[in-house]
């Protein structure tokens, strides 16, 4: 039974509109939003919520997005009235408590990444990337180096990388990966030159392996006058153990909704703080929190950072998300951050071994997995026509979210799997059991997979029809 909020509409009498506003500016037609009773609203959206998978209810072995536990304390702290009711234009003397939290988070993220300075303002990873490459652009411009129009990006990179580079006005040059997962250095060398602004890398890469020659790559790029941008999407793999600043990166973003356990919220809000080496500090996006000699905190603005790439949103960014990241990091502390990557790596490597044991093929069997790894079900496809998508959809029937599929595109019929450190051995073992069963089903009853999922509110949806018909709003 499908239930729409538009089914719950009780007629409300028309309101008198203000007479001091010219009639020409007033609404002409009634506002056709439904008028449900409060219980109807509560029941409708509560029931909708129950149709979702979520971390609080399911395991997400979801590569390329660290879906780990989002501590509830962070939620309750961000909701404290002293934070939640604070108007953004409150003068600094009225928001020292909030500024203290943000300033500490800046400091801690700098320490964690091995960078000199941080701006918390980007609203998501993609906006962080944009800020990062914009800073690279501004850096070259400030040095009168206007010819650097090209950004190098591995073919396997997240789609946001080339999109952000383009949005910052760069041309994108794609670099292939070698069969062992590492970057093709020869190709890199060919393209390094005075027209190269820099390179965007994530390490460990989207292939789930650590780029072993990162120091060498950094040296060559720097030598060619380029800067290195670190895509922080995979930071969970090395948190508290390896710092992008030491690898030679000049700028980076952090996905606080991945590594720092703020919730995904069904698609956001995230937060994409950027961290930079000293030489990029003047270009940081605004605002940034600074501590004055007397200890008072204030927002830095255009007057303080005249070379800044500017503002990316009207206020200080997704502050409620930043509060949650602060709470998480404060819980972990110095010795806790290193455990994150250690157990993320343990879970990934254990799961890889176990899935190999039950018959799945690793994309890079000779490599150590980072926090994630890639399987390919090309063998199943050849044997029975079963594709990665079918395996993914069948997993849903067992109350397990699907891994990322068909990314990176480099590996055919791939599943990108990241268990994260907050899942227990028992959960991983159950996942292996289910994956083993699915593999048997694929070989013995492939139609079971092709028609999956069977036990969810809806079966596989017709996406082609959705795009063709394009019903994107309830008709009036």
């Amino acid at each position, binding site marked *: 039974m499908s239930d729409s909020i538009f089914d719950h509409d009780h007629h409300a009498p028309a309101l008198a509109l203000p007479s001091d506003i010219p009639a020409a500016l007033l609404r002409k037609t009634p506002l056709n939003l439904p008028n449900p009773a409060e219980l109807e609203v509560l029941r409708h959206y509560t029931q909708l919520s129950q149709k979702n998978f979520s971390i609080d209810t399911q395991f997400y072995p979801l590569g390329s997005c660290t879906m780990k536990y989002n501590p509830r304390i962070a939620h309750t702290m961000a909701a404290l009235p002293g934070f939640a009711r604070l108007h953004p234009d409150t003068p600094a003397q009225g928001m020292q408590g909030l500024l203290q939290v943000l300033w500490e988070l800046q400091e801690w993220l700098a320490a964690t990444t091995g960078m000199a300075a941080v701006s918390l303002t980007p609203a998501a990873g993609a*906006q962080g990337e944009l800020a990062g490459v914009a800073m690279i652009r501004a850096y070259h411009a400030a040095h009168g180096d206007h010819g650097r129009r090209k950004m190098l990006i591995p073919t396997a990179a997240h789609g946001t990388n080339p999109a952000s580079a383009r949005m910052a006005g760069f041309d994108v040059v794609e670099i292939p990966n070698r069969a062992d997962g590492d970057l093709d250095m020869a190709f890199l060398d060919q393209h390094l030159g005075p027209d190269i602004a820099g390179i965007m890398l994530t390490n460990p890469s989207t292939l789930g392996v650590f780029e072993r020659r990162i120091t060498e790559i950094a040296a060559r790029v720097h030598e060619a006058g380029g800067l290195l941008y670190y895509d922080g999407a995979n930071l969970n793999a090395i948190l508290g153990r390896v710092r992008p600043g030491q690898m030679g990166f000049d700028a980076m973003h952090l996905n606080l909704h991945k590594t720092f356990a703020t919730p995904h919220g069904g698609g956001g809000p995230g937060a994409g703080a950027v961290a930079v080496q000293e030489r990029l500090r003047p270009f940081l996006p605004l605002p940034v929190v600074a501590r004055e000699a007397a200890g008072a905190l204030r927002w830095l603005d255009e007057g303080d950072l005249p070379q800044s790439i500017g503002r990316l949103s009207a206020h200080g960014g997704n502050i409620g998300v930043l509060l949650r990241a602060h709470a998480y990091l404060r819980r972990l502390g110095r010795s806790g951050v290193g455990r994150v990557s250690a157990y993320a790596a343990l879970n990934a490597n254990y799961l890889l071994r176990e899935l190999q044991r039950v018959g799945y093929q690793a994309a890079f069997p000779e490599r150590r997995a980072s926090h994630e790894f890639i399987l390919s079900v090309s063998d199943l496809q050849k044997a029975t026509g079963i594709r990665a998508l079918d395996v993914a959809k069948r997993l849903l029937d067992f109350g397990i979210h699907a891994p990322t599929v068909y990314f990176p595109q480099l590996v055919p019929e791939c599943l990108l799997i990241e268990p994260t450190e907050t899942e227990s051995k028992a959960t991983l073992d159950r996942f292996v059991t289910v994956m083993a069963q699915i593999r048997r089903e694929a070989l013995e009853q492939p139609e079971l997979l092709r028609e999956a999922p069977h036990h969810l509110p809806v079966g596989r949806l017709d996406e082609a029809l959705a795009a063709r018909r394009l019903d994107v709003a309830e008709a009036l």
Partner: protein
Amino acid sequence: MPYIPHDAAETAAMLAAVGVERLDQLFDEIPPVLQAQDMALPEGLSEMALQRELEGRALANAPLRCFAGGGAYAHHIPAVVWEIAGRGEFYSAYTPYQAEASQGTLQLIYEYQSFITRLTGLEVSNASLYDGASGLAEACLMALRIQGGDKSILVPENLLPGWRRVLDSVLGLQNIRLVSVPYDRATGTLILPADAGDAAALIILQSNALGLLEPVDALTDWAHAHGLLAIAVVNPLALALLKAPGVWGTQGADMAVGEGQPLGIPLSGGGPYFGFLACRKAQVRQLPGRLVAKTVDGQGREGFCLTLQAREQHIRRGKATSNICTNQGLMVTAATIHMAALGGHGLQQTAVRCHERAVRLRELLTGVPGVSLPYGGAFFHEFVVRLPHAAVAVRDALLGYGLLAGLPLSDWGMGEAGDLLVCTTELLEEADLLAYRGALTAVLETL
């Protein structure tokens, strides 16, 4: 070990399965020189100690009765809104790429899109952008894609300065020219330029940064007459009262964009909020961001899924309509529940109350000696008063009375030193308005 479940025996068993002895060995492909630097972080806190620390910090932000607006508004949020939005199934869910496992979020976004189209009078709404200002930048880029060629954007000078700066930052990266359109210093509203130059679009504000209503019909028609797209920038709550952009002028605005915060989103010191963006169906392929559509499954059951993903970066990569990936999903969840909880009637009632309070406060404040009104035009719930002293000093003095009295225009480089932008919402009762007048009177006497 906060949030990591493994005990020693489990860790040992897993290490053995992997074939290593210590956790460190899992990082054996990483050059040792890069590993294990000590980090300048404090030691971790228990949840109890964290709570105590953060409650202390929260208390350090003095609670103020809020008369400030300027793009962020203090509204009542029904308890039901965040009680539901905070449920784990919404709060901790992933982006709804796996449609069958995300029907809750997908249907909710579909309902959100429906609500926004009805508020704006346009046919399509995306599933959100970061905030109003960055949403406006996306709308400008969209207009430029639709219009083609190297063009500029006409930007009113009475746009909120924070928004203008975002346009400068984002559009500047692609060397897009922003042509400022001045406003009449006497009326506070826009002066139509003589010609449109090579502009692709005109931004039309309802209300403008001074809180004043603009003649949106004329502006829209002017834009269309000059071959420009009309981009409406609107407060979604005000749209419960004001004419929908879709019917501005003869043809209606082409896009509507705005800050969604007034729809159930806490002020939170500036975010997370969300930007909404609506357009005509004909231009949906140029729309940035996610979009949800209704469809059916193999058995003909109705369901919802993301659609037209080929516009997006994870498919189109460098050729996407935008680099946006993560948007402001949970804020949209709250906003949708908020709109449903208030209903069309409640939204309109709230908008009317905001306006009535503003009319009343404006009347009260003009009775304070030395206070005048620089602008006479119609307004929604914000207006400028001109004080006989620097507005910054008055604002700071009023903090002592527990009031955030408004936004000094001088902070924005606008108006005169005494100009203060004051906002009222339904949260303010008559007693609050009288208290404001009393405190202002007292402060002006002593300054």
